[in-house]
């Protein structure tokens, strides 16, 4: 297992290199941020002086080389806006995002497991159709729309939850529901189709022929098997979750990474953009690694090689 993990971690190095290249290229293409950094009445001379000072007049390769050199030291450069190092700013926002992601994942799991299993065991019943239809709607609802609707209903009209911000559990509930709904919908669909297939397997029939209660047949023998594809696909969708988090955080003024990133993009605070994208990339990679580990724990047939 340790060998396997080590191997996987080493495999990340080229992935991170590619990501760094892409991120840097995008920023390079996005153009000179100097104009935005200076007051509006700055002279052309001022702009040029700052450009040279920041090394932004150098050719692409030189800039990239310098950037990479800094990067391996964990230095993403200074934020223009906050005038401090970018990475600590990003890491400071990370817990809020992780909190939101974890809460929405918990909500998704609580909804998706029983619903998915339950509609698979009652395949084609009207309740199954209702659940499946609900999942389609849940998936189709855009995060910003759902977020705004929830705020209007529960915060503005009913006053049950705060409109925005972070702090108490009450602050967390609406954003977590907003972000969790789409994930729950997708997971329900996955668990259902996986369970439908597993329930027709020979070993499920064997379990029934032993006289086991239906609950054990479904949750011991079938469900664990059905989780194998679910875990893999859910991990692959971490990036979708991140995308949803960007929007949800903005809607609810949730002080997380997403909010910081969107602000940074708007103000072309490129150091922060780069540090955030990099952090998110590492998160996604980490989730995939985690899925791989879970997958291996679930399925004894897989050898570490």
């Amino acid at each position, binding site marked *: 297992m340790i060998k396997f993990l080590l191997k996987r971690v080493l495999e990340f190095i080229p992935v991170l290199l590619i990501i760094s290249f892409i991120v840097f290229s995008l920023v390079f293409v996005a153009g000179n941020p100097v104009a935005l950094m200076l007051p509006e009445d700055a002279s052309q001379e001022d702009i040029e002086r700052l450009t040279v000072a920041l090394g932004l007049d150098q050719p692409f390769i030189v800039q990239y080389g310098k950037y990479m050199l800094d990067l391996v030291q964990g230095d993403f450069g200074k934020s223009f806006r906050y005038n401090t190092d970018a990475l600590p700013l990003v890491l400071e926002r990370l817990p809020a995002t992780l909190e939101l992601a974890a809460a929405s994942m918990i909500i998704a799991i609580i909804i998706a497991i029983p619903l998915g299993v339950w509609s698979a065991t009652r395949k084609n019943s009207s309740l199954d159709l209702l659940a499946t239809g609900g999942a389609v709607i849940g998936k189709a609802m855009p995060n910003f729309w759902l977020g705004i609707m929830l705020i209007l209903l529960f915060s503005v009209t009913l006053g049950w939850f705060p409109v925005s911000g972070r702090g108490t559990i009450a602050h967390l509930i609406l954003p977590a529901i907003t972000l969790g709904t789409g994930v729950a919908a997708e997971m329900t669909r996955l668990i259902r189709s996986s369970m439908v297939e597993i329930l027709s397997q020979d070993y499920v029939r*064997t*379990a029934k*022929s*032993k*006289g*086991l209660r239906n609950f054990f047949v479904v949750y011991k023998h079938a469900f664990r*098997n059905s989780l194998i594809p679910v875990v893999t696909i859910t991990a692959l969708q971490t990036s979708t979750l991140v995308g949803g988090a960007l929007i949800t955080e903005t809607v609810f003024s949730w002080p997380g990474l997403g909010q910081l990133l969107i602000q940074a993009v708007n103000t072309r605070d490129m150091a922060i953009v780069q540090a955030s994208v990099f952090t998110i990339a590492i998160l996604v990679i980490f989730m995939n690694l985690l899925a791989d580990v879970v997958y291996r724990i679930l399925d004894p*047939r897989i050898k570490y090689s």
Partner: protein
Amino acid sequence: MKTGTAILDVDDLHTYFRTEHGVIPSVNGVSFEVREGETLAIVGESGSGKSVTSLSIMGLIDSPGKVEKGNILFEGKNLTTLGKKDYRKLRGNEIAMIFQEPLSSLNPLFTIGNQLSESIKLHQKVDKKTARVKSIEMLRHVGIPRAEKVFSSFPHVLSGGMRQRVMIAMALSCNPKLLIADEPTTALDVTIQAQILELMKKLAKENSTAILLITHDLGVVAEMADKVVVMYAGQVVEHTDVYTLFSNPKHPYTKGLLNSTPKFHETEEVLASITGTVPTPSKMPKGCKFNPRCPFATEVCTTQEPVLREVADGHKVRCWLYEEKEDAI
């Protein structure tokens, strides 16, 4: 011939599947009984309803299938009206089942020990430790070497033959009165087949377990069975003891089956093999369901369905050939 009270009495069983393509009468009026300690074989081509019959007895027919009509009496209890909970108490305990596919019949995510001790714990109400001891004992009993090691192994490390031994151990762990074996050796190598059959025979004898053996291999029938039911298109076409089946088969389908088995090519009428295939439910012929493939089919066969009639003591046939003879007498 063995005698004894019938422990299983299947009477006029009808199991239908209601699908989008219409009603499929997979089992259509099947009757037979299995006596204590006796082995009854059900033979017939693929699709004749053998598995559906056995799953009906186990109470494992899932929607869209349903036992529509008929009774299944097990030790006098009518299983068709038995409550779910009582049925579960029988399953894996008094009636156990072995399936055709040893490779896929064990759950890949749990150890052999986990799956084996599961039913022991459930039905014998013993603790984990006792169940473990019993399981290992059972594994040894079915001839598995290094039983302790196998106990904590996952199914994928075992061969097909070993897995089928595990299935047998699992099925017999609670000393069932009836063992239903649905083509237990079809998926195995010939040499392993003989070993598994031998094992089943030995263990069944030890505990006087009755066996309902489903197969389409007449060699297996000759080896194992006391009595035989021949099924065709969801019906019993011939029902007799194993000696009569091979020495004096009556139904043209049975004769055809025997003739397509190399060992028995010297029987009187020559039917090289049966031409054609089993009719699909949507294209069921009128009259006798076998008539399109039957070399002896007459007018009446294509219009009216024959009934299962006793032509000699304990020998029943569903065929117009024998109805006529009776009428003539």
